[in-house]
């Protein structure tokens, strides 16, 4: 005999539903994340600082990134120029603040594009399996056999320099590497009975993938994207250092370490020091945040 439904329970249950207070719930989640993962929270703060610098560069930077200040060549760090000036009298702090914009643009667009492609490849490959999977995985293998800097430089040699081409070239590699991880997550998701149930209820492949597989691998995608952002920013700075990254006048952190400034570094080491500190901090921030997110959201990925 079915039990009569206790209607008095419902309002209480709704009262306690956290969805009713999304802001408080989100704050509580952030609070517990900070307590459990202090290093991850530190990474989050660094990432937030990077985003603020990139978004509000005009307000934060004391000078324009290409402004050549009269009589201020090679000034050491001091009260007037916090991080010093370079060989043509540009304020290094301002260039680093504006450089954040390049890193953020390249990093986020690359990871967005790369992860979208990777999600498509990885999920279809892990869901359908069979011959399609084998074929796709061999192509991914082939891409992964190239040392990243060598194939990207070669691609850029063909495509020509420019921010868009840097993003395209980097996202191909991101897509190949990331699709492996997403495929792995998909393989474990499709083993669950609810996938079989959805299929048995007559849901098409498209519906199963979008409604049941995608939400369950979403955490994996977010984690891989966060860690990937650090890697992409590092790769972009290496390309810019070699002169094949984002072209001037955009101040990329990597290009601040190369070119005409190199000969002046011997008399003005701060030209060499600050951009590298910026890159290291940001990559550190993304790695820490990504690691902490992984531990919290998906401990299965530990060690990968």
């Amino acid at each position: 005999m079915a039990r009569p439904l206790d209607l008095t329970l419902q309002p209480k249950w709704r009262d306690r539903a956290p969805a009713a207070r999304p802001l408080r719930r989100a704050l509580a989640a952030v609070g517990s994340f900070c307590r459990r993962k202090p290093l991850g929270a530190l990474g989050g703060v660094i990432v937030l600082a990077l985003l603020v610098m990139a978004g509000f560069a005009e307000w934060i930077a004391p000078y324009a990134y290409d402004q050549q200040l009269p009589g201020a060549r090679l000034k050491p760090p001091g009260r007037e120029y916090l991080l010093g000036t370079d060989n043509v009298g540009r304020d290094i702090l301002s260039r680093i603040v504006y450089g954040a914009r390049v890193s953020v643009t390249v990093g986020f667009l690359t990871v967005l594009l790369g992860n979208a492609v990777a999600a498509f490849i990885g999920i279809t490959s892990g869901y359908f399996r069979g011959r399609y999977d084998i074929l796709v995985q061999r192509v991914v293998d082939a891409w992964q056999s190239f040392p990243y800097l060598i194939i990207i430089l070669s691609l850029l040699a063909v495509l020509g320099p420019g921010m868009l081409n840097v993003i395209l070239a980097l996202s191909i590699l991101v897509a190949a590497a990331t699709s492996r991880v997403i495929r792995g997550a998909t393989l474990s998701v499709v083993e669950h009975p609810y996938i079989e149930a959805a299929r048995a209820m007559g849901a098409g492949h498209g519906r199963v993938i979008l409604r049941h597989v995608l939400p369950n691998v979403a955490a994996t995608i977010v984690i891989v994207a966060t860690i990937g952002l650090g890697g992409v920013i590092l790769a972009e700075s290496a390309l810019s250092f070699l002169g094949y990254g984002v072209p001037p006048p955009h101040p990329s952190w990597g290009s601040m370490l190369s070119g005409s400034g190199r000969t002046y570094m011997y008399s003005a080491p701060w030209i060499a020091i600050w951009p590298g500190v910026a890159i290291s901090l940001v990559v550190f921030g993304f790695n820490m945040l990504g690691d902490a997110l992984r531990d919290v959201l998906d401990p299965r990925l530990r060690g990968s």
Partner: protein
Amino acid sequence: MLRKYAFKRLLIALPSLLLATVIVFSLSRLIPGDVVTLMMEENQYAKDLAEMRAKLGLDRPIYRQYLEWIGRAATGDLGRSLYSNRPITSELTYRLPVSLELGAVALVVAVLLGVPIGIVSAVRRDTVRDYVARSAAIMGLAVPGFWLGTLVVVLPAIYLGWSPSIQYTAFGADPWRHFTQFLLPGFLLGVASAAAIMRLTRTQLLEVLRQDYVRTAWAKGLRERWVVLKHSLKNALIPVVTILGIQVAQILSGTVIFESIFGLPGMGRYLFDSITERDYPAIQGINLVVVTTVVAINLLVDLVYAWLDPRIRY
């Protein structure tokens, strides 16, 4: 059994290598038309457009170009450089050993730093030593190699009046100096890989130290050194072997940067110069050699893995 596994593994590696050659080959098909014109006018690689296209092999059907190129590559002929008009193979036989020496130093540094620190970090878990090691590893992964390289050249010059040599010495000229010139760039190149190896060694060893047989070893009253080095380490290091293949690809990437900073005439430097000179046949040749090296090393790593861990030969 191992032979069967090796055969299977080869069956997977070969299609990947073939696909990789298609990728390398397709590179030159992506060159925009105006770049071909630039190659003719600025770099003066040909008298007219027809000759330029013929030199790049763009005048024949694509499948014939590929078959001809791969067929000749299989016999060791990678064509001629547009820039120097010398055979690319002879240029590579001079430059590949330089990069391999640099890479070998880096790999040795990575293993010698990464594995012991990983062991200490796992055995002395949550102590000061562990925190220091883990923080150093995270920094090692975040710090860009080209920045470290730049600082190592610039800072001693300012504060010590000394700077590392950026002049290449051939083996024949002075074997000792030839060897020592690789130590500094090799060390810097190996730092990032050491960090990755350290992290994996630590997690794997922690995993193994929790196993029942390790507890048995402790219960028997064995000394710590014996339990860790004899019973645990062997099993913990098996996964570490697999990422060596990935690290080789990483290290080869780094050669482009460190050979440029330290003036070593290796393959990374050659690639960089060829890109500047728009020398596409050379770029193709370098990519082909690099990708073959990586696939071969990964195959070797997988075979070593199967030999170390018999469970893997499914």
